[in-house]
């Protein structure tokens, strides 16, 4: 499998769920990204001057285009996209990356949330190999910040410590900043909640310190119940060390990992707050798969064909016919007059010497 094959298979999967393909433009007003910089996973947007002094940007993300361009009506839209996105790397170079994703916008109910998790697991499963989907809930984390009595500046530090699973530095920080002792005591327990989703949710409920945390734990319980017994259930884990921007995300959030890839390959969540920012009603939930992270993962499988058929001047038709047979039988074949160096083969048929 390669990235291109995966994109085709994912499009088939999403269309089986009745999702419509969304095709955004390549350029957007730079202000769309500047105003929502914390929503972007990469803050390095490529901007340039357009006609009449407009400052434009090559899109670094698709979700913001979906939210800003979809009409605000009563329809619930279920969309997918497979697009290129453009970013600057940390070293400053321009990068073009493949990204595919799904967005549900409108009346988002429990079925939508469960279907998104189902789609994520099928997406990660199509990549092949082991995968894990970490699930968290912004309501639970924000509720915990309130229980700690943390102001905005303190919350930013606590979010960072949560993301790092850093209990040792939290102890000192909570003491010097006078955070609520009772709430601070359970930090270590919260960052270590994990494993089986049903057990982990029960644990999260036990540690809930206020209505916000309880409500979030109830929502996670609903999700765990609706997915109980499904074949991918063991791959879904609760992990409160995922914390997206509280300015945009409000419900369940997730990160996906594939064994053999060192960084997350997928992320997303419920982002009603982004919709509200654009004065749009309803809710939204979605995810993006970062195909750029997967390029090296697929590399080992690339560059191999079942057969090589080498042809001479008098055996061109013979070679074509044999290749047709192999392809009709489901195999892969390369036709060449010389042995190519860029690809390996399981078998070689040399027709160059035959008349």
């Amino acid at each position, binding site marked *: 499998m390669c990235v291109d094959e995966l994109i085709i298979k994912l499009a088939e999967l999403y269309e089986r769920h009745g999702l419509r393909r969304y095709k955004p433009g390549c350029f957007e007003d730079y202000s769309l990204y500047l105003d929502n910089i914390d929503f972007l996973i990469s803050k390095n947007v490529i901007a340039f001057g357009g006609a009449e002094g407009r400052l434009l940007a090559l899109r670094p993300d698709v979700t913001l285009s979906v939210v800003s361009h979809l009409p605000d009506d009563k329809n619930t839209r279920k969309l997918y996209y497979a697009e290129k996105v453009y970013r600057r790397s940390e070293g400053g170079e321009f990068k073009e990356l493949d990204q595919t994703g799904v967005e549900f916008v409108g009346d988002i109910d429990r079925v939508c949330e469960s279907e998104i998790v189902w789609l994520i697991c099928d997406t990660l499963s199509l990549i092949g190999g082991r995968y894990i989907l970490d699930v968290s809930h912004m309501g639970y984390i924000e509720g915990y910040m309130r229980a700690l009595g943390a102001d905005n500046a303190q919350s930013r530090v606590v979010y960072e410590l949560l993301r790092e699973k850093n209990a040792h530095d939290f102890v000192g920080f909570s003491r010097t900043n006078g955070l609520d002792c009772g709430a601070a005591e359970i930090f270590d327990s919260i960052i270590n909640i994990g494993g089986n989703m049903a057990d982990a949710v029960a644990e999260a409920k036990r540690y809930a310190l206020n209505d916000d945390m309880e409500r979030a734990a109830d929502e996670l319980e609903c999700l765990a119940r609706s997915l109980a017994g499904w074949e991918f259930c063991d791959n879904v884990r609760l992990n409160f060390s995922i914390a997206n921007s509280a300015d945009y995300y409000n419900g369940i959030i997730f990160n996906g*990992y594939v064994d053999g890839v*060192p960084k997350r390959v997928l992320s997303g969540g419920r982002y009603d707050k982004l919709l509200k920012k654009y004065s749009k009603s309803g809710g939204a939930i979605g995810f993006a798969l970062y195909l750029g992270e997967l390029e090296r993962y697929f590399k080992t499988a690339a560059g191999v064909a079942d057969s090589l058929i080498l042809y001479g001047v008098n055996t061109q038709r013979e070679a074509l016919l044999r290749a047709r047979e192999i392809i009709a039988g489901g195999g892969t074949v390369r036709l060449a007059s010389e042995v190519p160096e860029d690809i390996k083969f399981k078998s070689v048929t040399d027709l160059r010497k035959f008349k």
Partner: protein
Amino acid sequence: MINIALPKGRLGERAYALLSSAGYACGEYFPDSRKLVFCDTDSGVSYFWVKPADVAVYVERGAADVGVAGKDILLEYSPDVYELSNLETGKCSMCVAAPADWQDDMSRPLRVATKFVNVAKKYFDGLGRDIEIIKLNGSIELAPILGMADVIVDIVETGKTLKENNLKVFENIFEISARLIANKASYNFKKDQITELVKRLNGEVNA
């Protein structure tokens, strides 16, 4: 098998001693060897020795599942990793130091010599102080002595070098010690092994 990145030098040796006492000894390891990779199938570990500043890179990019890095490196490079334990070794401080008679002249930008560009920028941003960074790779103390910088931002362990060069600590920015970090994907796929390692290591630290 857990792949562990250790920093070359004293800190790495201390970290290895802790890991070894926690049951992760490596039969192949000899301190004077020039080998960079040591494996021990019985302990289920493989050690890499890398430059201290590179440990976080090896871990973030998944070449190592876990590693030992100083808090100074973690705050300078902000790698996207889990920080699972404070090993309470390699203790020192990140400080602002200057000649003993130095007085800040607020009418012009402060010239700051440092290896830790991001740490220095963040610290002086927080104070609202305009600075000019002079990035150096070593012998930072020389910069104010020769008049190239007003102050330095650097690690201070005993303060002996500063004293011998008539420099003085004016501000302690943060305390530093060695931390055990883990790649986020590895943590998911090797959770039991990594959790066990953290537990045993914490047992040694607190012993």
